[in-house]
Structure formats: structure tokens, C-alpha cells
């Protein structure tokens, strides 16, 4: 593991390296160009460590499996309630305006979708296990290496309203990010990722466990804080909506920032060393 030095390539060194013969001056661990691929080292700069890349794609795969299987499960009862219990005879909090995979529900549609709960449920929990184990590995690694402290926690000055509003305005105008964002995260990105990692995913796991009669029997105090199994199910759904929204915006931002280079960075670990725009 290269630790943090892996993450903080000197952008000036990387930029100068693209142009001329100063390559040997940057032969340090920060960029660690292998001599056999000087050309590649000159054109790209390290961006994401192996742990980030592997956990990113595992999580992406699991999230997709969880989303698809979760949708399959929810169409067997697209009604939501608040509190301990709720069923088709109870007034609902809201209904999804979609057909259901069970004939016992009054959906307003004349047809019933095929029941896919068997494989959906098994896939849902298997993907949840892999996602949770991946997440634990990532969080443990992030705490040990200072990844969160150095890469994700915004600095005090970044959190000032002037700075936040400037970046927000740029985002709202769909302005492509500047060159500095090829090797670092902007403050909105940092806050969003922190929220996904430390709020939305933990809440998803927590509300998921709160629906399990066995887990509730083992940890009643920690599992009833949501106000009941049906409340937990409803929050699980809202959390899904937020994570799906994150996924859409995330992919949109990757496209806006340069799909090829961002994908290359998350797959190979190296990003194109862009010249600073003056």
C-alpha cells in the first residue's frame, strides 16, 4: 500500500512531465513511473488506489443487484405504512402507482405481474452481504490510511458559503470541472460521498436489519428506534430513492467531467494529466 503519497501527485510535476524531458526529476514514490512505461507515466498520473477501485466496482455491482431485486420485491406489495404493522386492510401512508405481482392487492391495474420474489430475495441478501463486507473493508482501510481525512473531509475554508455557492453555481450551470478536479474532489463531491458512505449506506443496512424478526429479537433496542418494522421498510424505500438519485447524478457528473478519463481512472487507477487552463 502506498498510503497517502499515492494520492497526492504533485500536479505541477505531472504537468511538466507531459511536455519535455524532466521525467527523471519526478521519479519518486508519489508518481512511481515504471521505467518500462515512461510514455504512459508521462501522459497519466495516479488517481485511485487499488482498494478504492476494487471496492468501488464491487459496491456498484452489489448496488445494481440490490436495486433490481429490491424493485422485484417491492412490487409484491407496493404499499407503504408507518408504525409497527400494516397490510392491505390498513390505511397506507402512500401507494406506488404501479401494478403488483400479487392478485390480492387493489392496484387499479387489471393484470398481475409475475412473482419473482424467490430469486430476488436470495439475490438481495447475498448482494447485501457482499456490499456490507466490501464496505467494512473500505471503511477500515480508509480510517487506517487517512483516506477519509485527506481525500473526503472538506477543509474549513471550503465549507464557507462563498466557496460552496461558487461550486454549486458551477454545477447548476453544468460547467465542466476544472483541471484541478482530475486529481482531487471538490467540496460538494466530498460532502456527497461522505453522506453516501456514512449516512445513506449505514441507514440502509440499519433499516434493512430492522425488518428482520430475528435481528429485532436479538437487538430490540437498536432496531425499534425507527418506530416499527413498517416504518423501517418505508425508510428503506426512501433511502433507496436517495441512493438511486445519487447514482443518476454520479453518472451524469462522470459524463460531464469526461467519461473516458474518469472511467479510466476508476478502472486502471491512472488519469490523464491535464494541463492547467490559464
Amino acid at each position: 500500500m502506498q498510503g497517502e503519497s499515492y494520492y497526492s501527485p504533485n500536479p505541477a510535476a505531472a504537468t511538466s512531465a507531459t511536455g519535455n524531458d524532466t521525467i527523471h526529476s519526478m521519479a519518486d514514490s508519489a508518481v512511481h513511473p515504471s521505467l518500462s512505461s515512461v510514455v504512459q507515466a508521462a501522459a497519466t498520473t495516479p488517481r485511485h488506489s487499488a482498494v478504492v477501485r476494487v471496492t468501488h466496482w464491487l459496491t456498484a455491482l452489489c448496488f445494481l443487484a440490490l436495486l433490481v431485486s429490491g424493485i422485484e420485491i417491492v412490487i409484491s406489495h407496493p404499499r407503504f405504512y408507518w408504525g409497527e404493522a400494516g397490510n392491505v386492510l390498513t390505511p397506507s401512508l402512500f401507494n406506488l402507482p404501479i401494478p403488483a405481482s400479487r392478485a390480492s392487492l387493489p392496484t387499479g391495474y387489471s393484470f398481475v405481474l409475475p412473482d419473482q420474489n424467490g430469486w430476488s430475495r436470495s439475490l438481495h441478501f447475498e448482494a447485501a452481504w457482499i456490499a456490507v463486507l466490501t464496505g467494512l473493508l473500505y471503511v477500515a482501510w480508509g480510517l487506517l490510511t487517512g483516506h477519509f481525512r485527506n481525500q473526503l473531509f472538506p477543509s474549513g475554508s471550503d465549507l464557507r458559503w462563498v466557496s460552496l455557492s461558487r461550486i454549486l453555481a458551477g454545477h447548476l450551470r453544468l460547467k465542466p470541472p476544472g483541471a484541478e478536479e482530475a486529481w482531487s474532489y471538490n467540496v460538494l463531491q466530498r460532502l456527497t460521498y461522505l453522506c453516501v458512505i456514512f449516512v445513506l449506506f449505514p441507514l440502509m443496512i440499519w433499516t434493512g436489519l430492522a425488518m428482520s424478526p430475528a435481528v429485532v429479537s436479538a437487538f430490540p433496542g437498536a432496531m425499534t428506534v425507527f418506530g416499527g418494522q413498517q416504518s423501517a421498510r418505508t425508510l428503506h424505500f426512501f433511502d433507496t430513492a436517495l441512493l438511486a438519485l445519487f447514482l443518476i447524478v454520479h453518472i451524469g457528473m462522470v459524463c460531464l467531467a469526461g467519461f473516458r478519463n474518469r472511467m479510466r481512472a476508476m478502472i486502471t487507477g491512472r488519469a490523464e494529466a491535464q494541463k492547467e487552463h490559464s
Partner: protein
Amino acid sequence: MNTLSRRKLITAGLAATAGVSGLAVAARMADRHGLIPPDCGGIYGLGHTLTYASHRILTANSLAREFPRSEISKTPYANGKPPKDAEFKHLEAGGFADWRIAIEGLVARPASLSLADLKAHSSRSQITQLACEEGWSFIAEWTGVPLAEVLNAAGILPQARYVLYYSIQRNWLGSVDMADAMHPQTLLTYGMNGGELPVGHGGPLRLRVPRQLGYKSVKFINRLKVTDNLDELPKGKSYSWYAGI
């Protein structure tokens, strides 16, 4: 270079051997401690096994949540339809006085018990939730005799690993491991909310397993079998065998 790569190869080989044998030992130990579910194979076996093993460790002594009387649902939903066959109709017409449940398999004293025989045992009432895998739920007070008491009276043989429970409905059965079979809240349930268990909710007799989802609480039970294998379970069903979730 050559010696280095050979050393690396040997180290990697030893590490791989140690890893595989470590896993094999872990699997054997897990099996001995009853942490491997019957559906541990196949593409979903990993998820089934992790869930079952962790729940068996974490819920070894836990009790399903019981609710205050005020939480009893005013609209308990009776899912599915009661059996339509003549045998069930005939028993229902007679107020289920002739309903009997057979206790067989790995027991010292096989028996056939009427509802009156079950009611002669000590009864237990508990207000628990029934949560269906579809997503809906209700809370009711369930009254019955703990399955453990009936099994103990029949004398469980030491090879026992599972209990199969059969519905009067053709090809409908459930099964639990001995941990859930002997759990104090696993009830052969004949009463609900102070009255007889309605036919819509599985009357006259339903096995309630409150730490698992509703599909493990099979209705219209007329036969119990203590066994050391689950060969009788239908193959190819992908609903997880363990449903504590």
C-alpha cells in the same frame, strides 16, 4: 530472480493450501455447530449461509419481540384461501373435534393428538408480529402449546436435526432446525386474539415461528416429523430455507 520467484511460488502455494484447509476446517466446525443451512449450495448459498450462521450465533437465546395489547392489529389480514377439499370441509363441519396431529419420526413414543389433547398441555399466549415476505404484517395474540413441550413428551431421539411440519393441503410443508423447534415461542397455535384460531389464519392448528417470516408459519398442520435430513423438501425452490431474514 529465479530463486525469488521460486520462493514466491512456494510461499503462495503454502498460503493457498493453508487458506483452503483453513476454510475446510471452518466449514466442518460450522457444520458441527449447526451453522450451515440446507440451502448452502448454489449461487445463493453464500448469502443463505452467512445469514443463517450469523443469526444462529446472534439469536441463540433471543426472544421474538412481544407487543402490548394496544398494538394488536384491528385488521389482521388472512392471506390465501382455506383448503376446499372434502376432508377439510368435513372436519370443519364437525368443529374440528376430529382434527388430529401425528407426531412421528425420530421420537421414542410416536403419537396422534387431538386439539383437546394439545389444550391439555400447558398453554402459552404471546402478542407477536406476523410479517410476510411480501412486505405486509399484522400483530395478534397467539395461543398454543410450545412445540418443545409436545416433542419432549414424545421423546426426541439424539439424531434429531430438523422438524418437518405438514399442512393438510397437499404438498405443503415447512421445516425448522431444532434450535427453532425447541424455542419457547414456537407454538402449535390453536387460538388467536382470545378465540379459536380462525380458518383464514390457519385454524384449527398453525405452527407459529415468530422469529421468522410468515412463510415458515404453515397453516392447517396435521403431521409433525422429527428427522435428521430434509430430503423430502421440494427441490429447486429458491425461497431461502431460513427466513429470519
